[in-house]
């Protein structure tokens, strides 16, 4: 068996800045993962559906517009509805520290600070991907 970690790097909401998301996508690829990048301005419905169709292990949400408190939990809810509740959902972008507890209560397993080292993100994914998914 040759399992590969599959990741969807997705940008919900209206901001059009995706340099950070693209850098992250490339770094995950270089770490040996299969990475699907969504492009900008996607809806939570699209993101959840794509995550299920692509059978990803991880969804990395990146949002700079400030709407993370509505968009991120919505993605989690939709994933659960579509039977993708076992997918690891992580957040990044510009998230104020005060919002992190709220997001974690709503199914975002970890939130990365702006400028958090990508290495740490990669390690987090490796350590926390739901390996039992495939068994």
């Amino acid at each position, binding site marked *: 068996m040759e399992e*590969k970690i599959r990741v969807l790097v997705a940008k919900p909401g209206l901001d059009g800045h995706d340099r950070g998301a693209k850098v992250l*996508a490339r770094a995950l690829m270089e*770490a040996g993962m*299969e990475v699907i990048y969504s492009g900008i301005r996607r809806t939570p419905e699209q993101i959840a559906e*794509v995550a299920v169709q*692509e059978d990803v292990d991880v969804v990395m949400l990146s949002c700079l517009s400030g709407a993370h408190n509505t968009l991120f939990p919505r993605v989690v809810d939709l994933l659960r509805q579509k039977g993708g509740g076992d997918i690891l959902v992580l957040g990044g972008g510009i998230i104020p520290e005060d919002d992190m507890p709220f997001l974690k209560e709503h199914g975002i397993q970890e939130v990365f600070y702006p400028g958090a080292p990508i290495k740490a993100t990669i390690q987090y994914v490796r350590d926390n991907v739901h390996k039992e998914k*495939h068994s």
Partner: protein
Amino acid sequence: MDVQSDIRTGDTRAIARAITWIENADARGAALVHDIYRQTGRAYIVGITGSPGSGKSTLIARMAALLAAGGAKVGILAVDPSSPFSGGALLGDRIRMFDISLTHDVYMRSMGTRGSLGGLNRSTRMATRILDAAGFDWILIETVGAGQSEVDVHDVAYTTVVVLAPGMGDDIQAMKAGIMEIGDAFVINKADREGADRTLNQVESILHLSAAEGWNPPVLKVSAEQNAGVDELVAVIARHRVHLEEDGELDRIKVRMARLDVVEILKERLTDTMNTELERAATQAELEKVATRETDPYTVADMIVDKIWRGR
């Protein structure tokens, strides 16, 4: 989740998981294909190939939307090369297909080549069978056409569409070198741009040289971005299908594909057996003898082959 019965009802998550098993060479994937294979053979499989950036993904999204609007179920497999260094991959086709993510009766999956030469691998073949069993009427397969790799889309699709764009002179050279033979239709995409007519003329003059009786591949100007000419392309594919069916050619293609399905599985089985033999302590000792030149690699290889045959 009972993947096998859920696939028959077209359940998205079951289909997605089954393809993951196939990609991971998980034994459950093989068992599944074994069980569902008899329900396959109904889908019509189209390959779309061409250089990176020629607009294949954009075009496929348009084709899928059009076919789905006509009541068909459409499955898409988009293959991108994996990095030979990290084994990872940036699967970029979804970006152009995001808008059809929620289109009813359309399923799309991005796949990395995971080291297999040629771009289309065992996984793609078997994933096609999964989609077929799940009741998709059309399966559209996107592959990059770098070097020789586009040649094998022809091994998995009944109709092959080669996509070109203006200003890609290398593609014209590649056509002369043989890609031409695999195209059942040629698309000059980005017809909204300057130079499309010139490319069209070049392609037509190359094709003209080999014009013969039977099917002569049409050359179509399309703008995937502006959604112009996509209906003509779909009509051409439908005509090609009728041509193959009336000719009995489709049945011959299906025998060729059956052979390739068997070959893929055989390769896997033989590789497994070979690797098991290579790991044996007795073989290790022989390898050391090859290293010290007490024997040669042919002798050892023949010994292993003999042993595998007799070991049945």
